[in-house]
Protein backbone atom coordinates (compact mmCIF):
# COMPACT_ATOMS: atom_id res chain seq x y z
CA UNK A 1 0.00 0.00 0.00
CA UNK A 2 1.37 3.44 -0.88
CA UNK A 3 1.56 5.85 2.05
CA UNK A 4 -1.57 7.88 2.67
CA UNK A 5 -0.54 11.54 3.01
CA UNK A 6 -3.06 13.13 5.37
CA UNK A 7 -2.73 16.90 5.60
CA UNK A 8 -2.30 18.28 9.12
CA UNK A 9 -4.85 20.91 10.11
CA UNK A 10 -4.09 24.60 9.74
CA UNK A 11 -5.23 26.87 12.58
CA UNK A 12 -5.25 30.67 12.54
CA UNK A 13 -2.20 31.77 14.50
CA UNK A 14 -2.97 34.29 17.26
CA UNK A 15 -0.42 36.69 15.76
CA UNK A 16 -2.77 37.45 12.87
CA UNK A 17 -5.09 39.32 15.25
CA UNK A 18 -2.73 40.88 17.78
CA UNK A 19 0.99 40.87 18.43
CA UNK A 20 2.00 37.70 20.29
CA UNK A 21 4.14 37.82 23.41
CA UNK A 22 7.80 37.09 22.79
CA UNK A 23 8.53 33.36 22.45
CA UNK A 24 11.62 31.82 24.02
CA UNK A 25 12.34 29.53 21.07
CA UNK A 26 10.87 29.43 17.57
CA UNK A 27 11.82 26.51 15.32
CA UNK A 28 11.56 26.92 11.56
CA UNK A 29 10.84 23.62 9.80
CA UNK A 30 8.90 20.56 10.91
CA UNK A 31 11.13 17.95 9.32
CA UNK A 32 12.63 15.23 11.51
CA UNK A 33 15.12 17.67 13.02
CA UNK A 34 12.72 20.52 13.86
CA UNK A 35 10.13 18.15 15.32
CA UNK A 36 12.68 16.22 17.36
CA UNK A 37 14.13 19.46 18.68
CA UNK A 38 10.71 20.70 19.82
CA UNK A 39 10.16 17.41 21.68
CA UNK A 40 13.62 17.47 23.20
CA UNK A 41 13.16 21.07 24.40
CA UNK A 42 9.81 20.07 25.89
CA UNK A 43 11.54 17.28 27.84
CA UNK A 44 13.59 20.06 29.39
CA UNK A 45 10.38 22.03 30.11
CA UNK A 46 11.08 24.52 27.35
CA UNK A 47 8.09 25.55 25.21
CA UNK A 48 8.55 26.28 21.52
CA UNK A 49 6.66 27.34 18.42
CA UNK A 50 7.33 25.24 15.30
CA UNK A 51 6.60 26.80 11.90
CA UNK A 52 6.37 24.81 8.69
CA UNK A 53 5.48 26.06 5.24
CA UNK A 54 3.82 22.77 4.34
CA UNK A 55 1.11 20.61 5.89
CA UNK A 56 2.18 17.07 5.04
CA UNK A 57 5.09 14.89 6.05
CA UNK A 58 8.11 14.38 3.78
CA UNK A 59 6.98 13.36 0.29
CA UNK A 60 8.65 10.53 -1.61
CA UNK A 61 11.68 8.43 -0.81
CA UNK A 62 14.30 10.19 1.29
CA UNK A 63 15.79 8.95 4.57
CA UNK A 64 15.22 5.28 5.27
CA UNK A 65 18.05 4.11 7.56
CA UNK A 66 17.87 5.21 11.21
CA UNK A 67 20.81 4.41 13.40
CA UNK A 68 20.96 2.97 16.91
CA UNK A 69 21.74 6.45 18.24
CA UNK A 70 18.70 7.92 16.50
CA UNK A 71 16.56 5.16 17.97
CA UNK A 72 17.88 5.97 21.44
CA UNK A 73 16.93 9.61 20.85
CA UNK A 74 13.51 8.57 19.49
CA UNK A 75 13.07 6.51 22.64
CA UNK A 76 13.51 9.57 24.86
CA UNK A 77 11.08 11.46 22.64
CA UNK A 78 8.47 8.72 22.84
CA UNK A 79 8.38 7.26 19.34
CA UNK A 80 10.92 4.42 19.42
CA UNK A 81 8.35 1.75 20.16
CA UNK A 82 6.27 2.76 17.15
CA UNK A 83 9.33 3.09 14.94
CA UNK A 84 10.62 -0.35 15.92
CA UNK A 85 7.23 -1.96 15.49
CA UNK A 86 6.82 -0.50 12.02
CA UNK A 87 10.44 -0.53 10.84
CA UNK A 88 12.53 -3.30 9.34
CA UNK A 89 15.40 -4.16 11.68
CA UNK A 90 18.67 -5.04 10.01
CA UNK A 91 22.33 -5.26 10.88
CA UNK A 92 23.95 -7.24 8.08
CA UNK A 93 25.25 -5.58 4.97
CA UNK A 94 26.61 -7.39 1.92
CA UNK A 95 28.84 -5.89 -0.72
CA UNK A 96 29.05 -7.46 -4.16
CA UNK A 97 31.41 -6.93 -7.06
CA UNK A 98 29.62 -8.10 -10.16
CA UNK A 99 27.72 -11.16 -8.94
CA UNK A 100 30.38 -12.15 -6.40
CA UNK A 101 30.00 -11.26 -2.72
CA UNK A 102 33.29 -9.71 -1.63
CA UNK A 103 32.51 -8.50 1.83
CA UNK A 104 29.84 -8.51 4.51
CA UNK A 105 29.51 -6.84 7.88
CA UNK A 106 27.47 -7.25 11.01
CA UNK A 107 26.89 -3.85 12.57
CA UNK A 108 26.03 -4.99 16.05
CA UNK A 109 27.72 -8.28 16.70
CA UNK A 110 27.46 -7.87 20.48
CA UNK A 111 24.37 -8.23 22.64
CA UNK A 112 23.44 -5.99 25.54
CA UNK A 113 21.92 -2.97 23.80
CA UNK A 114 18.27 -1.94 24.03
CA UNK A 115 18.25 -0.69 20.44
CA UNK A 116 19.27 -2.52 17.26
CA UNK A 117 22.04 -1.22 14.99
CA UNK A 118 19.70 0.10 12.32
CA UNK A 119 16.11 0.09 11.22
CA UNK A 120 14.73 0.98 7.84
CA UNK A 121 11.69 3.20 8.03
CA UNK A 122 10.50 5.72 5.49
CA UNK A 123 11.02 9.34 6.51
CA UNK A 124 7.29 10.05 6.22
CA UNK A 125 6.56 7.59 9.03
CA UNK A 126 9.24 9.10 11.26
CA UNK A 127 7.81 12.57 10.71
CA UNK A 128 4.26 11.33 11.23
CA UNK A 129 5.15 9.71 14.56
CA UNK A 130 7.05 12.79 15.73
CA UNK A 131 4.29 15.15 14.61
CA UNK A 132 1.63 13.11 16.42
CA UNK A 133 3.49 13.41 19.72
CA UNK A 134 4.30 17.08 19.11
CA UNK A 135 0.69 17.98 18.27
CA UNK A 136 -0.49 16.44 21.53
CA UNK A 137 2.21 18.13 23.63
CA UNK A 138 1.10 21.15 25.68
CA UNK A 139 4.53 22.82 25.39
CA UNK A 140 4.66 22.62 21.59
CA UNK A 141 2.78 25.02 19.31
CA UNK A 142 3.07 23.41 15.89
CA UNK A 143 1.85 25.61 13.06
CA UNK A 144 1.46 24.24 9.55
CA UNK A 145 1.14 26.46 6.46
CA UNK A 146 3.25 29.11 8.22
CA UNK A 147 6.05 30.11 5.90
CA UNK A 148 8.91 32.27 7.13
CA UNK A 149 9.66 35.00 4.59
CA UNK A 150 12.12 37.22 6.44
CA UNK A 151 14.31 37.28 9.52
CA UNK A 152 15.87 40.18 11.32
CA UNK A 153 17.88 40.17 14.52
CA UNK A 154 19.75 42.23 17.06
CA UNK A 155 21.71 41.24 20.16
CA UNK A 156 18.58 40.48 22.19
CA UNK A 157 16.05 38.91 19.88
CA UNK A 158 15.08 37.80 16.39
CA UNK A 159 11.96 38.74 14.48
CA UNK A 160 10.39 36.50 11.86
CA UNK A 161 7.94 37.53 9.15
CA UNK A 162 5.50 34.73 8.44
CA UNK A 163 3.00 34.13 5.67
CA UNK A 164 -0.14 32.05 6.14
CA UNK A 165 -3.12 31.30 3.87
CA UNK A 166 -4.93 34.08 5.76
CA UNK A 167 -2.23 36.72 5.63
CA UNK A 168 1.05 37.72 7.22
CA UNK A 169 2.21 38.29 10.80
CA UNK A 170 5.42 38.59 12.77
CA UNK A 171 6.87 36.74 15.76
CA UNK A 172 9.51 37.84 18.22
CA UNK A 173 11.78 35.11 19.56
CA UNK A 174 14.62 34.82 22.04
CA UNK A 175 16.15 32.24 19.72
CA UNK A 176 15.28 30.98 16.26
CA UNK A 177 16.42 27.52 15.27
CA UNK A 178 16.61 27.09 11.51
CA UNK A 179 15.68 23.46 10.80
CA UNK A 180 14.52 24.42 7.33
CA UNK A 181 16.42 21.84 5.33
CA UNK A 182 19.16 21.64 2.73
CA UNK A 183 17.91 24.65 0.76
CA UNK A 184 17.43 26.62 4.00
CA UNK A 185 15.68 29.91 3.20
CA UNK A 186 17.00 31.30 6.52
CA UNK A 187 20.56 30.57 5.50
CA UNK A 188 19.93 32.53 2.33
CA UNK A 189 18.19 35.38 4.16
CA UNK A 190 21.30 35.76 6.31
CA UNK A 191 23.54 35.52 3.19
CA UNK A 192 25.62 32.72 4.68
CA UNK A 193 28.14 30.83 2.61
CA UNK A 194 27.45 27.07 2.29
CA UNK A 195 30.84 25.81 1.21
CA UNK A 196 31.73 22.32 0.04
CA UNK A 197 31.64 20.13 -3.02
CA UNK A 198 29.12 18.80 -5.49
CA UNK A 199 29.73 15.29 -6.82
CA UNK A 200 29.36 15.04 -10.57
CA UNK A 201 27.24 11.94 -10.47
CA UNK A 202 23.55 11.19 -10.71
CA UNK A 203 21.62 8.58 -8.77
CA UNK A 204 18.21 7.18 -9.51
CA UNK A 205 16.17 6.57 -6.35
CA UNK A 206 13.17 4.30 -6.73
CA UNK A 207 10.69 2.79 -4.30
CA UNK A 208 8.91 -0.28 -5.55
CA UNK A 209 6.22 -2.38 -3.93
CA UNK A 210 6.53 -6.12 -4.37
CA UNK A 211 5.97 -9.37 -2.57
CA UNK A 212 9.54 -10.48 -2.18
CA UNK A 213 11.50 -12.66 0.15
CA UNK A 214 14.64 -10.55 0.18
CA UNK A 215 16.34 -10.81 3.56
CA UNK A 216 16.45 -7.77 5.86
CA UNK A 217 19.93 -6.82 4.76
CA UNK A 218 21.61 -3.99 2.94
CA UNK A 219 22.88 -5.13 -0.46
CA UNK A 220 25.36 -3.04 -2.37
CA UNK A 221 26.81 -3.86 -5.78
CA UNK A 222 29.85 -2.44 -7.46
CA UNK A 223 29.54 -3.02 -11.20
CA UNK A 224 26.36 -5.05 -10.81
CA UNK A 225 25.66 -7.65 -13.47
CA UNK A 226 22.19 -6.14 -13.97
CA UNK A 227 23.17 -2.50 -14.42
CA UNK A 228 25.85 -1.22 -16.70
CA UNK A 229 29.21 -0.46 -15.15
CA UNK A 230 28.01 1.47 -12.09
CA UNK A 231 26.74 0.73 -8.60
CA UNK A 232 23.43 -0.27 -7.04
CA UNK A 233 21.94 -0.42 -3.57
CA UNK A 234 18.92 -2.34 -2.35
CA UNK A 235 17.13 -1.86 0.97
CA UNK A 236 14.01 -3.42 2.36
CA UNK A 237 11.45 -1.07 3.91
CA UNK A 238 8.11 -1.66 5.66
CA UNK A 239 4.89 -2.24 3.67
CA UNK A 240 6.69 -4.49 1.14
CA UNK A 241 8.44 -1.43 -0.25
CA UNK A 242 11.98 -1.83 -1.52
CA UNK A 243 14.31 1.04 -2.15
CA UNK A 244 16.69 0.84 -5.07
CA UNK A 245 19.48 3.34 -5.73
CA UNK A 246 21.14 3.13 -9.14
CA UNK A 247 24.18 5.11 -10.11
CA UNK A 248 23.54 6.62 -13.53
CA UNK A 249 26.63 8.63 -14.44
CA UNK A 250 26.94 12.39 -14.80
CA UNK A 251 25.84 12.47 -18.44
CA UNK A 252 22.44 10.94 -17.68
CA UNK A 253 19.48 13.21 -18.33
CA UNK A 254 17.36 13.24 -15.14
CA UNK A 255 14.12 13.98 -16.98
CA UNK A 256 14.61 11.03 -19.32
CA UNK A 257 15.78 8.66 -16.58
CA UNK A 258 12.67 9.35 -14.51
CA UNK A 259 10.33 8.08 -17.23
CA UNK A 260 8.64 4.82 -16.21
CA UNK A 261 9.44 3.24 -19.59
CA UNK A 262 13.15 3.73 -18.78
CA UNK A 263 12.99 2.99 -15.05
CA UNK A 264 10.88 -0.16 -15.12
CA UNK A 265 13.16 -2.21 -17.38
CA UNK A 266 16.14 -1.20 -15.24
CA UNK A 267 14.39 -2.41 -12.10
CA UNK A 268 13.24 -5.60 -13.76
CA UNK A 269 16.91 -6.39 -14.19
CA UNK A 270 17.61 -5.73 -10.50
CA UNK A 271 14.83 -7.88 -9.08
CA UNK A 272 14.66 -10.41 -11.90
CA UNK A 273 10.94 -10.08 -12.65
CA UNK A 274 8.28 -7.52 -13.48
CA UNK A 275 5.86 -8.26 -10.68
CA UNK A 276 6.18 -4.92 -8.84
CA UNK A 277 4.57 -1.52 -8.70
CA UNK A 278 6.60 1.68 -9.01
CA UNK A 279 5.87 3.86 -5.98
CA UNK A 280 8.37 6.70 -6.36
CA UNK A 281 11.19 7.79 -8.66
CA UNK A 282 13.59 10.67 -8.40
CA UNK A 283 17.06 11.54 -9.65
CA UNK A 284 19.56 13.17 -7.30
CA UNK A 285 23.00 14.68 -7.37
CA UNK A 286 24.72 14.77 -4.00
CA UNK A 287 26.76 17.34 -2.18
CA UNK A 288 28.84 17.68 0.95
CA UNK A 289 28.66 21.19 2.39
CA UNK A 290 28.47 22.94 5.72
CA UNK A 291 28.08 26.33 7.29
CA UNK A 292 31.23 27.78 8.77
CA UNK A 293 29.38 28.38 12.05
CA UNK A 294 26.05 26.89 13.16
CA UNK A 295 25.35 29.75 15.56
CA UNK A 296 24.65 33.13 13.95
CA UNK A 297 23.69 35.43 16.78
CA UNK A 298 20.11 34.62 17.74
CA UNK A 299 19.68 32.24 14.82
CA UNK A 300 20.95 28.68 15.28
CA UNK A 301 21.21 26.11 12.48
CA UNK A 302 20.58 22.38 12.91
CA UNK A 303 20.16 19.46 10.51
CA UNK A 304 20.39 19.83 6.74
CA UNK A 305 20.30 23.63 6.95
CA UNK A 306 23.69 23.46 8.70
CA UNK A 307 25.31 20.59 6.80
CA UNK A 308 24.52 18.21 3.97
CA UNK A 309 26.20 14.95 3.02
CA UNK A 310 25.74 12.39 0.29
CA UNK A 311 23.43 9.66 1.59
CA UNK A 312 25.79 6.68 1.46
CA UNK A 313 26.31 6.11 5.15
CA UNK A 314 22.92 7.46 6.22
CA UNK A 315 24.58 10.40 7.88
CA UNK A 316 22.06 13.12 6.97
CA UNK A 317 19.01 12.65 9.16
CA UNK A 318 20.95 10.70 11.75
CA UNK A 319 23.45 13.50 12.22
CA UNK A 320 20.63 16.05 12.36
CA UNK A 321 19.18 14.11 15.27
CA UNK A 322 22.56 14.21 16.97
CA UNK A 323 22.49 18.00 16.49
CA UNK A 324 19.23 17.94 18.45
CA UNK A 325 20.98 15.88 21.10
CA UNK A 326 23.76 18.42 21.46
CA UNK A 327 21.53 21.50 21.24
CA UNK A 328 18.33 20.68 23.18
CA UNK A 329 19.55 20.69 26.78
CA UNK A 330 21.85 23.63 26.21
CA UNK A 331 19.26 25.81 24.50
CA UNK A 332 16.62 25.00 27.12
CA UNK A 333 19.04 25.99 29.88
CA UNK A 334 19.94 29.24 28.11
CA UNK A 335 16.31 30.14 27.38
CA UNK A 336 15.44 29.48 31.03
CA UNK A 337 18.35 31.56 32.33
CA UNK A 338 20.16 28.55 33.82
CA UNK A 339 23.15 28.89 31.50
CA UNK A 340 25.00 31.62 29.69
CA UNK A 341 24.38 32.15 25.97
CA UNK A 342 28.08 31.52 25.41
CA UNK A 343 27.33 27.81 25.90
CA UNK A 344 26.05 27.74 22.32
CA UNK A 345 29.70 27.85 21.27
CA UNK A 346 30.01 24.32 22.69
CA UNK A 347 27.13 23.18 20.46
CA UNK A 348 28.80 24.83 17.50
CA UNK A 349 32.21 23.30 18.20
CA UNK A 350 30.93 19.77 18.82
CA UNK A 351 28.60 19.63 15.86
CA UNK A 352 31.05 21.28 13.48
CA UNK A 353 33.53 18.59 14.46
CA UNK A 354 30.84 15.96 13.81
CA UNK A 355 29.87 17.54 10.48
CA UNK A 356 33.48 17.39 9.33
CA UNK A 357 33.65 13.73 10.31
CA UNK A 358 30.42 13.00 8.44
CA UNK A 359 31.52 14.95 5.39
CA UNK A 360 34.88 13.18 5.37
CA UNK A 361 33.23 9.76 5.54
CA UNK A 362 30.56 10.57 2.98
CA UNK A 363 33.03 12.15 0.55
CA UNK A 364 35.37 9.18 0.74
CA UNK A 365 32.53 6.75 0.10
CA UNK A 366 31.20 8.81 -2.77
CA UNK A 367 34.66 9.05 -4.26
CA UNK A 368 35.16 5.29 -4.02
CA UNK A 369 31.85 4.78 -5.80
CA UNK A 370 32.46 7.43 -8.43
CA UNK A 371 36.21 7.30 -9.12
CA UNK A 372 37.68 9.72 -11.62
CA UNK A 373 38.94 8.12 -14.83
CA UNK A 374 42.56 7.04 -14.82
CA UNK A 375 44.58 6.01 -11.81
CA UNK A 376 41.75 6.60 -9.32
CA UNK A 377 39.48 4.26 -11.21
CA UNK A 378 42.32 1.74 -11.48
CA UNK A 379 43.00 1.62 -7.74
CA UNK A 380 39.26 1.36 -7.02
CA UNK A 381 38.87 -1.57 -9.40
CA UNK A 382 41.95 -3.34 -8.09
CA UNK A 383 40.77 -3.00 -4.48
CA UNK A 384 37.54 -4.72 -5.52
CA UNK A 385 39.47 -7.28 -7.48
CA UNK A 386 41.76 -8.07 -4.53
CA UNK A 387 38.83 -8.14 -2.12
CA UNK A 388 37.77 -11.37 -3.81
CA UNK A 389 41.17 -12.90 -3.02
CA UNK A 390 42.44 -11.45 0.25
CA UNK A 391 40.77 -10.31 3.46
CA UNK A 392 42.78 -7.15 3.84
CA UNK A 393 41.22 -5.44 0.82
CA UNK A 394 37.64 -6.01 1.96
CA UNK A 395 37.43 -3.16 4.45
CA UNK A 396 38.85 -0.85 1.76
CA UNK A 397 35.78 -1.46 -0.40
CA UNK A 398 33.79 1.60 0.62
CA UNK A 399 30.07 1.64 -0.11
CA UNK A 400 29.35 4.02 2.77
CA UNK A 401 30.50 4.04 6.38
CA UNK A 402 27.28 3.87 8.32
CA UNK A 403 26.41 6.59 10.79
CA UNK A 404 27.76 6.18 14.28
CA UNK A 405 27.52 8.75 17.03
CA UNK A 406 30.41 11.16 17.01
CA UNK A 407 32.96 10.95 19.82
CA UNK A 408 33.72 14.53 20.77
CA UNK A 409 37.33 15.46 21.52
CA UNK A 410 36.61 16.63 25.08
CA UNK A 411 39.42 17.93 27.19
CA UNK A 412 38.13 16.26 30.36
CA UNK A 413 39.30 14.16 33.30
CA UNK A 414 39.90 10.61 32.16
CA UNK A 415 41.52 7.45 33.46
CA UNK A 416 43.34 5.46 30.80
CA UNK A 417 42.83 2.22 32.73
CA UNK A 418 39.07 2.39 32.00
CA UNK A 419 37.74 0.94 28.70
CA UNK A 420 38.09 3.06 25.53
CA UNK A 421 34.43 2.58 24.53
CA UNK A 422 33.30 4.82 27.37
CA UNK A 423 35.94 7.55 27.23
CA UNK A 424 34.80 11.14 27.76
CA UNK A 425 33.11 12.63 24.70
CA UNK A 426 31.38 9.39 23.67
CA UNK A 427 27.73 8.52 24.06
CA UNK A 428 27.39 6.29 27.13
CA UNK A 429 27.26 2.72 25.81
CA UNK A 430 24.12 0.89 26.79
CA UNK A 431 24.08 -2.15 29.08
CA UNK A 432 21.40 -4.27 30.72
CA UNK A 433 20.36 -3.16 34.22
CA UNK A 434 18.00 -5.44 36.12
CA UNK A 435 15.00 -5.89 33.84
CA UNK A 436 15.74 -2.71 31.97
CA UNK A 437 18.51 -0.73 30.33
CA UNK A 438 21.13 1.73 31.42
CA UNK A 439 20.24 4.15 28.63
CA UNK A 440 16.77 4.62 30.17
CA UNK A 441 18.28 5.93 33.39
CA UNK A 442 20.30 8.63 31.62
CA UNK A 443 19.40 11.73 29.73
CA UNK A 444 17.59 14.49 31.56
CA UNK A 445 19.93 15.99 34.11
CA UNK A 446 23.66 15.69 34.58
CA UNK A 447 24.29 12.74 36.87
CA UNK A 448 27.07 10.72 38.40
CA UNK A 449 27.07 7.00 37.81
CA UNK A 450 28.82 5.12 40.60
CA UNK A 451 30.05 1.65 39.73
CA UNK A 452 31.39 -0.74 42.34
CA UNK A 453 31.76 1.99 44.96
CA UNK A 454 30.17 5.09 46.44
CA UNK A 455 30.10 8.59 44.97
CA UNK A 456 31.18 11.45 47.22
CA UNK A 457 28.52 13.80 48.49
CA UNK A 458 27.33 16.05 45.67
CA UNK A 459 24.49 18.27 44.61
CA UNK A 460 23.99 15.94 41.64
CA UNK A 461 21.78 12.89 41.21
CA UNK A 462 23.69 9.65 41.70
CA UNK A 463 22.97 6.49 39.77
CA UNK A 464 24.27 3.34 41.42
CA UNK A 465 24.81 0.96 38.55
CA UNK A 466 24.28 -2.78 38.81
CA UNK A 467 27.60 -4.44 38.04
CA UNK A 468 27.12 -7.24 35.54
CA UNK A 469 29.48 -8.63 32.90
CA UNK A 470 28.34 -6.26 30.16
CA UNK A 471 28.58 -3.18 32.34
CA UNK A 472 31.96 -4.29 33.62
CA UNK A 473 33.31 -4.77 30.10
CA UNK A 474 32.01 -1.39 28.93
CA UNK A 475 32.73 0.73 32.02
CA UNK A 476 35.27 -0.91 34.32
CA UNK A 477 37.63 -3.18 32.45
CA UNK A 478 40.11 -4.34 35.10
CA UNK A 479 39.36 -1.45 37.46
CA UNK A 480 37.53 -2.28 40.72
CA UNK A 481 35.34 0.83 40.68
CA UNK A 482 34.60 3.96 38.68
CA UNK A 483 32.67 7.22 38.66
CA UNK A 484 31.19 8.57 35.43
CA UNK A 485 29.83 12.09 35.04
CA UNK A 486 27.16 11.95 32.32
CA UNK A 487 25.60 14.91 30.47
CA UNK A 488 21.90 15.37 29.68
CA UNK A 489 22.59 14.16 26.12
CA UNK A 490 23.91 10.86 27.54
CA UNK A 491 27.45 11.83 26.59
CA UNK A 492 30.17 10.98 29.08
CA UNK A 493 31.67 14.22 30.40
CA UNK A 494 34.42 12.83 32.67
CA UNK A 495 35.39 9.67 34.50
CA UNK A 496 37.62 8.57 37.34
CA UNK A 497 38.31 5.45 39.36
CA UNK A 498 38.04 7.63 42.46
CA UNK A 499 37.30 11.34 42.68
CA UNK A 500 36.73 14.04 45.26
CA UNK A 501 33.70 16.30 45.40
CA UNK A 502 35.88 19.16 44.19
CA UNK A 503 37.07 17.24 41.13
CA UNK A 504 33.56 16.23 40.15
CA UNK A 505 32.23 19.74 40.77
CA UNK A 506 34.90 21.21 38.48
CA UNK A 507 34.02 18.75 35.70
CA UNK A 508 30.35 19.53 36.20
CA UNK A 509 31.04 23.26 35.91
CA UNK A 510 32.89 22.61 32.65
CA UNK A 511 29.74 21.07 31.14
CA UNK A 512 27.97 24.40 31.56
CA UNK A 513 30.84 26.60 30.43
CA UNK A 514 31.71 27.66 26.90
CA UNK A 515 34.78 25.93 25.44
Amino acid at each position, binding site marked *: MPYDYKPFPYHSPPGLDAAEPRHGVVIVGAGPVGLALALELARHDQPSVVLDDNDVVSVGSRAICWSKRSLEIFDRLGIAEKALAKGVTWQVGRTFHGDREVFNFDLLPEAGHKMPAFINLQQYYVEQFLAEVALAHPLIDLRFKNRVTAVEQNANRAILDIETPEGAYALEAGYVVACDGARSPLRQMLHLDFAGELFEERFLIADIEMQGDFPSERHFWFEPPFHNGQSALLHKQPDNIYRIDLQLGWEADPEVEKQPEIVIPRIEKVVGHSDFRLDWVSVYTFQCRRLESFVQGRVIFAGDSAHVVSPFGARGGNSGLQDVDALGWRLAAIAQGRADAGLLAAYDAERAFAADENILNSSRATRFMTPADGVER*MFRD*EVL*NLAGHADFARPMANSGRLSRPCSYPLDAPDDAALPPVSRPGTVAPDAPQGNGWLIDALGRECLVMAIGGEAPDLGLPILRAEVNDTLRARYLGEAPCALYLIRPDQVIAARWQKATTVQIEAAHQAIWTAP
Partner: protein
Amino acid sequence: MTLITHPNITDADGFYARLLAAHQGLSEAESQRLNARLVLILANHVGDDAALEEALKLAKAAGQS
Protein backbone atom coordinates in the same frame (compact mmCIF):
# COMPACT_ATOMS: atom_id res chain seq x y z
CA MET B 1 62.60 7.02 10.43
CA THR B 2 60.43 3.92 10.70
CA LEU B 3 60.60 3.18 6.96
CA ILE B 4 63.41 0.77 6.14
CA THR B 5 65.54 2.48 3.50
CA HIS B 6 68.74 0.49 3.84
CA PRO B 7 69.09 -2.63 1.67
CA ASN B 8 66.73 -5.22 3.15
CA ILE B 9 66.18 -7.79 0.38
CA THR B 10 68.71 -10.60 0.60
CA ASP B 11 68.73 -11.35 -3.11
CA ALA B 12 68.07 -7.92 -4.62
CA ASP B 13 69.00 -9.00 -8.17
CA GLY B 14 66.77 -12.03 -7.91
CA PHE B 15 63.77 -9.98 -6.75
CA TYR B 16 64.30 -7.42 -9.49
CA ALA B 17 64.32 -10.18 -12.08
CA ARG B 18 61.14 -11.73 -10.66
CA LEU B 19 59.42 -8.33 -10.67
CA LEU B 20 60.20 -7.91 -14.36
CA ALA B 21 59.17 -11.49 -15.04
CA ALA B 22 55.80 -10.84 -13.43
CA HIS B 23 55.23 -8.04 -15.94
CA GLN B 24 56.43 -10.04 -18.92
CA GLY B 25 53.92 -10.18 -21.73
CA LEU B 26 51.50 -7.76 -20.06
CA SER B 27 50.11 -4.77 -21.88
CA GLU B 28 50.85 -1.30 -20.50
CA ALA B 29 47.42 -1.23 -18.82
CA GLU B 30 47.74 -4.74 -17.37
CA SER B 31 51.15 -3.82 -15.98
CA GLN B 32 49.72 -0.76 -14.30
CA ARG B 33 47.03 -2.87 -12.74
CA LEU B 34 49.53 -5.40 -11.49
CA ASN B 35 51.54 -2.59 -9.92
CA ALA B 36 48.45 -1.20 -8.26
CA ARG B 37 47.67 -4.57 -6.70
CA LEU B 38 51.26 -4.92 -5.56
CA VAL B 39 51.21 -1.51 -3.91
CA LEU B 40 48.03 -2.42 -2.04
CA ILE B 41 49.32 -5.81 -0.96
CA LEU B 42 52.68 -4.50 0.20
CA ALA B 43 51.15 -1.47 1.91
CA ASN B 44 48.94 -3.77 3.93
CA HIS B 45 51.97 -5.86 4.85
CA VAL B 46 53.75 -2.74 6.13
CA GLY B 47 50.65 -1.55 7.95
CA ASP B 48 52.41 1.07 10.05
CA ASP B 49 51.00 4.55 9.30
CA ALA B 50 54.27 6.40 9.76
CA ALA B 51 56.21 4.02 7.53
CA LEU B 52 53.55 4.30 4.79
CA GLU B 53 53.59 8.08 5.07
CA GLU B 54 57.37 8.09 4.68
CA ALA B 55 57.15 5.72 1.74
CA LEU B 56 54.67 8.03 -0.02
CA LYS B 57 56.94 11.01 0.61
CA LEU B 58 60.06 9.22 -0.59
CA ALA B 59 58.34 8.00 -3.75
CA LYS B 60 57.05 11.51 -4.52
CA ALA B 61 60.33 13.20 -3.79
CA ALA B 62 62.32 10.80 -5.94
CA GLY B 63 60.00 11.54 -8.87
CA GLN B 64 60.68 15.26 -8.67
CA SER B 65 64.44 15.32 -9.17
